């Protein structure tokens, strides 16, 4: 723990949570005026992005464990506090969230049904995500963790595709079951800690000092892992994701894949690993097995999909397998790679989901059988599709490559065997991504139809993403710099 400045500072972190909440409320108040709602949510998400950028630029290089820390008394009787804490990793996630949110709002611009509710839910989701990334008290963390589910649930169940209700319920119940195990573990850990020290507290920083027996640690760790593994998702527990991603409306898929999936892995890094270092140590090989199995299984499944949205869903799971592998390697380079990959995957796959939505808007289908030859019909869209596909398969010079290579390098230093297997998986990624590109862009034109190319709004969504993808591929250092210290201290705090 570091000493914290007691000077009252402007609550920037709370602002990140409150701004979207306020935006959501305002949207609901302007139910009769959809145009206002759109403008309002765009303004809100831009403002949040502005705050995140400000934090990145002005507070990104701080010393010590925390860049910013807010601590207010909340439920005194139970020792739950309102603690928001920003470190290097959280900073990246906050930045990613606010950036993706702007894209999501722009993408949802043409939603026609129940506009105000749609945008309100989108903003509520952002508030929940910000909370998850910032909360440093377990009750608060759990609160945001669950609150983020509700907007996603409604986004899928009301605005989704044909099987939306089933997918929404599946999504909710899967993640709920996992998180209830976490809830039990949270309460148990709290009581063990309270009985030991006499101080009852839910603040993670306090709970770190708890002395646990091996059995206790194992059980509690399992409780937390249940939540995080389902949310990540690692392979036997991934079926909710493919349905949810496929049925979700475009903006929802973007948030789901770009952000909500990251919360599981983020929970591992921020909560589970630091709290239970010994259990983590013995679990890492198993985690690696989970990761590798997921990497291959998902890649294999992706290769056999016809629905391009489903294909991308599996590709997400495959990528996340690699991210988890990097964490399991427990090595500085691998960790930095994992976190970077998390961010770049959010952007590249997010962009691909945007493009799929645009293609579906134009052609009315997502089946590769009914697509093909788009390169000639819509060259700009085709070019961006190719760019993000190549980025996604890890072409050197584009975003994912930087993360992947770091993960593989780091893993190789610790466990060469894992890295070799993982490398094969990356080749698999090339296979299914190329199949995707071939099915959508090239090949014979499925049907002569006049398809409009990208509009200005669509350019505005995709161009920043494209720039970022190139930038992060060529020069990822600015994004790696803030997390050096955090990752190092997390690794040091974990294994001896």
């Amino acid at each position, binding site marked *: 723990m570091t000493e914290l400045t007691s000077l009252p500072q402007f609550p920037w972190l709370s602002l990140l949570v409150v701004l979207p909440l306020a935006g959501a409320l305002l949207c609901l108040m302007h*139910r009769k005026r959809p145009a206002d709602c759109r403008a309002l949510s765009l303004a809100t998400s831009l403002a949040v992005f502005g705050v995140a950028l400000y934090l990145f630029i002005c507070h990104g290089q701080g010393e010590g464990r925390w860049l910013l820390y807010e601590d207010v008394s*909340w*439920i*005194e*009787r*139970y020792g739950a506090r309102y603690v928001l804490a920003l470190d290097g990793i959280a900073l990246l996630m906050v930045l990613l969230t606010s950036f993706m949110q702007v894209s999501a709002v722009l993408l949802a611009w043409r939603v026609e*049904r*129940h506009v105000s*509710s749609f945008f309100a839910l989108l903003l509520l989701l952002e508030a929940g995500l910000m909370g998850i990334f910032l909360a440093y008290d377990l*009750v608060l963390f*759990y*609160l*945001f*963790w*669950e*609150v983020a589910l*509700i907007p996603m*649930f*409604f986004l899928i*169940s*009301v605005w989704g595709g044909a099987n939306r*209700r089933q997918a*929404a*319920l599946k999504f*909710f*119940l899967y993640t*709920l*079951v996992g998180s*209830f*195990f976490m*809830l*039990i573990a949270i*309460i*148990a850990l*709290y*009581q063990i800690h309270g009985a030991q020290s006499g101080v009852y507290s839910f603040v993670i920083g306090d709970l770190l000092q708890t002395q646990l027996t091996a059995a206790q640690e194992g059980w509690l760790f399992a409780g937390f892992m249940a939540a995080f593994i389902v949310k990540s998702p690692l392979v036997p527990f991934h079926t909710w994701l493919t349905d949810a991603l496929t049925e979700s409306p475009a903006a929802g898929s973007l948030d789901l894949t770009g952000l909500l999936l990251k919360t599981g892995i983020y929970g591992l890094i921020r909560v589970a690993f630091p709290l239970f270092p010994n259990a983590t140590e013995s679990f890492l090989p198993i985690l690696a097995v989970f990761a590798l199995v997921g990497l291959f299984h998902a890649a294999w499944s992706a290769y056999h999909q016809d629905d391009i949205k489903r294909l991308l869903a599996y590709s997400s799971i495959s990528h996340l397998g690699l991210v988890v592998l990097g964490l399991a390697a427990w090595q500085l380079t691998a960790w930095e790679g994992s976190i970077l990959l998390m961010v770049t995957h959010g952007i590249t796959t997010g962009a691909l989901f945007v493009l799929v939505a645009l293609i579906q808007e134009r052609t009315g289908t997502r089946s590769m059988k009914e697509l093909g030859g788009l390169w000639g019909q819509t060259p700009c869209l085709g070019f961006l599709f190719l760019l993000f596909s190549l980025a996604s398969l890890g072409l050197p010079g584009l975003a994912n490559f930087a993360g992947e290579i770091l993960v593989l390098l780091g893993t190789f230093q610790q466990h060469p065997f894992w890295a070799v297997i993982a490398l094969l998986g990356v080749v698999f990624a090339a296979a299914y991504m190329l199949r995707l590109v071939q099915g959508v862009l090239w090949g014979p034109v499925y049907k002569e139809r006049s398809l409009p190319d990208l509009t200005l709004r669509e350019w505005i969504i995709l161009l920043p993403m494209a720039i970022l993808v190139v930038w992060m591929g060529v020069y990822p250092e600015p994004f790696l710099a803030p997390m050096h210290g955090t990752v190092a201290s997390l690794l040091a705090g974990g294994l001896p």
Partner: protein
Amino acid sequence: MSLLDLLALLPVLILVFAATTILMVGAWYKEPRPLIAGGILTALLAALAAGMVAPPVSEIAGLFSAGGYARFFTILWSLLAAAGLMLGGRFVEDKKIGAGEYVSLLLYGAAGMALLSSATHLLGLFLALETFTLVFYILIACNRDCEFAAEAGLKYLLMGAVATGFMAFGIALIYASTGSLALPDAVTQLTTVSGELHAWGLLGWGMILIAVGFKISLAPFHLWTPDVYQGAPAPVAALLATGSKGAVVAALVGMLAVSGPIWRDLVDLIWLLAALTMLVGAFSALAQKNLKRLLAYSSVTHMGTLLVGLLCQTSEGLAATTFYVVVYVVASFGAFAVIASLADKRGEPMSFDDLRGLGYRHPLRCAVLVLLLLSLAGLPGTAGFMAKFTIFHAALQSGYIALVVIGVFASVVSFAFYLRVAMLLFQSDKPASTWHVGSPLEHAVLAVCSSAVLVLGLFPGVLFDLIGRLLP
């Protein structure tokens, strides 16, 4: 009974006297609105009296407590009666039911609940319980247009009679074995007697438990619940689901707090009841196609969860139970209030067909309903989460790990059925028909319930501290 006792009894006296007056006046004066307004004012006045007038004695006639805990629940049930009257106004007018009778019955009911929550003597418990049960016998069947109402009334009457029998017999057995009906003597004496007498005493407590099981619908004594809720008019069902159950639980909490662990020898039995109730309620609710029946089964699961809190028998557990009662009452009452506010000449929208797509016709009230249902499910950020959290917390502290796991599992299942309703409301396949816009009073009730759910969910500390101070 001295004058001081009467002063301590002031809130209940206000309720009873006003109820009698309104009943008399209602016989000649048929205009419903002033009568209902009078009833609401009376209930609020009683709540005010309970809150402002400090009782000069701590116990009334050896039967009822006048402590802070009892007054807290007197306030709660009075406010609930006021809310029940706010909801019932339109129903009474539409169905041409005697307003005087309706108002006075509700006020009598509130008095009964208030007395029950403050009982410190088994006889007081019995009397108070019968007072409001009698009221509900009439209220449930009061809608003569509804085909289910008479059936519901009869069912409640029969079940109530059985429960009364068990209760009376149990009390008699306890008296036979301990020679006392006052708490905590009736409990402490039981630990000193041995042999056959001890067994009789335990049997007596077991019978009281069965009677309680009927009243708060613990599985397997819950079968009347869905039918009765379906048949009873929504304003009455709202009270039945919340006040009548909450008062019994509050009485149990009060008894446990005064007399220590009553149930040491019955722990296994209660454990089983709690587990069974949570599971049966949750799974039965999954199969429902009617919102009122669903809420009935939801109340069954909640009672199971409350039993977990009671089982702990620690101050932590009792405080958690009390908090849970308040939160459950607010959310469940609000859910019924939404139904009541939508009801019109055709009846109440409660079948899933009526609810389909209703969220687009009546967005605000359906959003409130979703919020309340999510609170009942225990979503973090709503009061329901804090309530479940404290109960599970207390149970883990007392070492009931398996029960907590069962409870959590039941919660997951309950999310499934609450969410199904939420999805149904915002399903847009076919347009729903339009229902009543709701009166301002009904909207006020909904506003209070939904804001209470949010405020208690985000800032539960105030109520926690209050309850911690009040528990005897």
